[in-house]
C-alpha cells in the first residue's frame, strides 16, 4: 500500500540499453517501411503508364530515387546511433546520465523512423500521379517535381533533428 505505482517503477527500471536498441531498430525498420511503401506505389503506376508512353521511364525514376534516399537516411542514422551505444559499468547503469543517453538514442530513432515513413508515403503517392500526368502531357512533369521536392524535405527535417539529438547522447564515463 505504501509503494508508488507499479507501472512507473517498471518503466524506470527498464534498462537504457533496451531503449537505445529499440530506437536503432525503429530508425531503420520504419524508414524502410516508408521507402518500400513509396516505391511500390510509384513503381506500379510508372510501369502501367509506360505501356503506352515508354518515354516517361527515364525521368520518372527520379521519384523512385527520392524514395530510396529515405531508406538511406534511415540506414545512416542507424549506423550513427549504434556507434553511440556504449557499455557502462553496472553501478552506473541506472544513473540519470545513463538513462538520458538511452532515452536520447530512443527518441532519435523514433524521430527519424516516423519522419521517413510519412516522407516515403508522400513521395510515393506524388510520384505515381507524376508518372500518370507525364504520360498524358509532358509539360506537367517539372511542376509536379517541385511538389515532390517539398515532400522529400520532410524526411530531411527528421534526419537533421535526429542527428542533432543523437550527438549529445553521452554515457557516464567509466570511473572506478
Amino acid at each position, binding site marked *: 500500500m505504501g509503494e508508488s505505482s507499479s507501472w512507473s517503477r517498471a518503466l524506470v527500471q527498464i534498462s537504457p540499453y533496451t531503449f537505445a536498441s529499440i530506437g536503432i531498430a525503429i530508425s531503420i525498420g520504419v524508414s524502410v517501411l516508408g521507402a518500400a511503401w513509396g516505391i511500390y506505389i510509384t513503381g506500379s503506376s510508372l510501369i502501367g503508364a509506360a505501356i503506352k508512353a515508354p518515354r516517361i521511364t527515364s525521368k520518372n525514376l527520379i521519384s523512385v530515387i527520392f524514395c530510396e*534516399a529515405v531508406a*538511406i537516411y534511415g540506414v545512416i542514422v542507424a549506423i550513427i546511433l549504434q556507434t553511440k551505444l556504449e557499455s557502462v559499468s553496472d553501478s552506473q547503469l541506472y544513473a540519470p546520465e545513463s538513462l538520458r543517453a538511452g532515452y536520447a538514442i530512443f527518441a532519435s530513432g523514433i524521430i527519424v523512423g516516423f519522419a521517413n515513413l510519412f516522407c516515403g508515403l508522400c513521395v510515393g503517392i506524388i510520384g505515381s500521379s507524376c508518372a500518370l500526368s507525364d504520360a498524358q502531357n509532358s509539360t506537367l512533369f517539372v511542376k509536379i517535381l517541385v511538389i515532390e521536392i517539398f515532400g522529400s524535405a520532410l524526411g530531411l527535417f527528421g534526419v537533421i533533428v535526429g*542527428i542533432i539529438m543523437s550527438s549529445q547522447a553521452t554515457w557516464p564515463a567509466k570511473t572506478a
Partner: protein
Amino acid sequence: MAGVMQKFILASMIMWVAPMAILYGFNHHIIPGSGQLSSSSQTLLSGFLAVISVNLVIVFYIIMAMKEPANRESQPDPAFLAEAKASINQSATTTSNPDAQSRDKVE
C-alpha cells in the same frame, strides 16, 4: 531502355556507397582531422556530410535525367499502333461487306 537502367543503377549504388564511406571514414579516423574532434561534433559532422552526399547524388541524377533528349514525344509504341490500325482496317472492311459473311445458324 538499357541506358536508363544503367544510369539508375549507377546512381543507386553511389547513393548507398558514398554515405557509408563517409561514416566509415569518420568512425575509424581515416579522414584526416577526424581524430581531433569531440564525439558530439564528430557525430554531427559525419551525419551531415553523409546526408549532403545523398542529396548531391539525387541532384546529379535529376540533372542527368532532365538532359535526355525528348524523342518519340507523344507517340505510342509503333507495334501497338500498327496492330491498332490493322484491327481498325479489318473491322472497316467487314462492316462495308455485310453479305460477305453468312450468319446463318448451322444446326
